[in-house]
């Protein structure tokens, strides 16, 4: 029943992948050809258009995971556990990319866009540690309701961690030497802002399409497992 209804309307996964491809293409084109070179930091500043959208996508993924975690705890619907886990998993991937692009950017230029200064980097590191710990937890518990419940609980503890981290870093500013800010306040000029938005949209679309791919894989796994269980019970 499931299979036939999926082919009746456009598969959301394919749709998302198509949208992502288009946006990615547009973003790449804009980043490399459209947006003007930054006066201060030179060509390497373009990394910013990758780094920040990827970072924001990571946060969005985490929020998505947390929302589904709450929904799971309230309803005990196992599919929600999967919907909480997959964004978390993608978050690790995007998080690693954030750290990598962040490192590249930092090395190439000493100036940093003010708002995202030290607070972001440190908070992100803490969140990334949390992501890894989430996976350790998940791999340590056997599959089943317990694993789903514990993952959801830990994810929600992580929700508490985010404001705590941001505040902690803010409150200890003395300890962490703020990187010197350049004169780019919160204003980017038109073309830069547009490029940024397109890149952000592209990253989000990429995350969404990866989500569908992974979900499909997991659903297939689950179906195989269910069939196996039925076969054994019938024996």
């Amino acid at each position, binding site marked *: 029943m499931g299979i036939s209804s999926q082919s009746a309307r456009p598969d959301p996964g394919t749709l998302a992948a198509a949208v992502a491809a288009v946006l990615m293409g547009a973003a790449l084109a804009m980043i490399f050809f459209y947006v003007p070179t930054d006066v201060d930091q030179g060509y390497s500043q373009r990394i910013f258009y990758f780094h920040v959208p990827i970072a924001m996508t990571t946060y969005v993924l985490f929020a998505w995971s947390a929302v589904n975690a709450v929904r799971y705890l309230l309803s005990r619907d196992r599919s929600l556990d999967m919907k909480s886990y997959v964004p978390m998993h993608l978050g690790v991937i995007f998080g690693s990319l954030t750290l990598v692009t962040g490192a590249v950017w930092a090395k190439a230029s000493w100036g940093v866009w003010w708002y995202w200064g030290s607070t972001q980097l440190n908070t992100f590191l803490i969140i990334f540690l949390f992501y890894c710990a989430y996976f*350790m937890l998940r791999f340590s518990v056997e599959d089943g309701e317990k694993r789903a419940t514990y993952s959801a609980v*830990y994810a929600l*503890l992580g929700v508490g*961690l985010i404001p*705590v981290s941001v505040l*902690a870093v803010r409150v*200890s500013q003395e300890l962490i030497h703020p990187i010197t800010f350049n004169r780019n306040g919160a204003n980017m000029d038109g073309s830069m802002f547009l490029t940024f938005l397109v890149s952000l949209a592209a990253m989000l679309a990429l995350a969404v399409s990866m989500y569908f791919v992974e979900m499909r894989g997991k659903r297939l796994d689950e179906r195989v497992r269910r069939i196996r269980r039925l076969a054994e019970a019938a024996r």
Partner: protein
Amino acid sequence: MALVRKDLLLELRSREVVPAMATFVLASFVLFRFALGGDRLGGGVRAATGLLWVAVVFTAMLGLSRAFASEREHRIWDGLLSTPVDRSALWLAKACSTFVFLVVMQAVALPLFWLFFLQEGRPPSIPVLVAALLLADAGIASLGAMLAGLASASHAREVLLPVLFLPFAVPLVLVGVQVTVATISPQTSAMDTLERLGFLGLYATIFALLGWALFEYVVED
């Protein structure tokens, strides 16, 4: 609250956790003292204070890894869960007894710390340090009781608990060190210190609320 009494009584009888924690702290201090340079304290009091907080966190994790040990080893959960007691009360009791253990451990650790590290240079404000430690203890106890419950599900629980806890420990240590070290310099205003202590209080509150709300999911099978 009978549960808290029970935990304290158990500890008194078995003498497992607190002596281990106290010994661990002492050993850490010795290690740190030598690591920082036996004669002159390399990095000064600032480095030492940082290490104090690190030692507190690791010792807390050591203690927490045994938090639910007796319940687990003797399958007592079945007994406790079949009573009408609120699941969150189970968490609260464990958090309270952990808090007591932590305070006892620090009562031992602080004089040692003073002896080992504060003999030279300007010392940080002790009242602030004590206040910060108490607030941090509340946070560690709340969160730790939760995480100890989560970690007991796995076979690698002794390793898992530190892994789960460390991301949460980072903000705590960050601010703990900051509030303590800043009191060495006369330029630190009382407002700044209060702000940081306030953060520690907020940390404890947030995780106490989360612990209260979520523990029933940890314990229900």
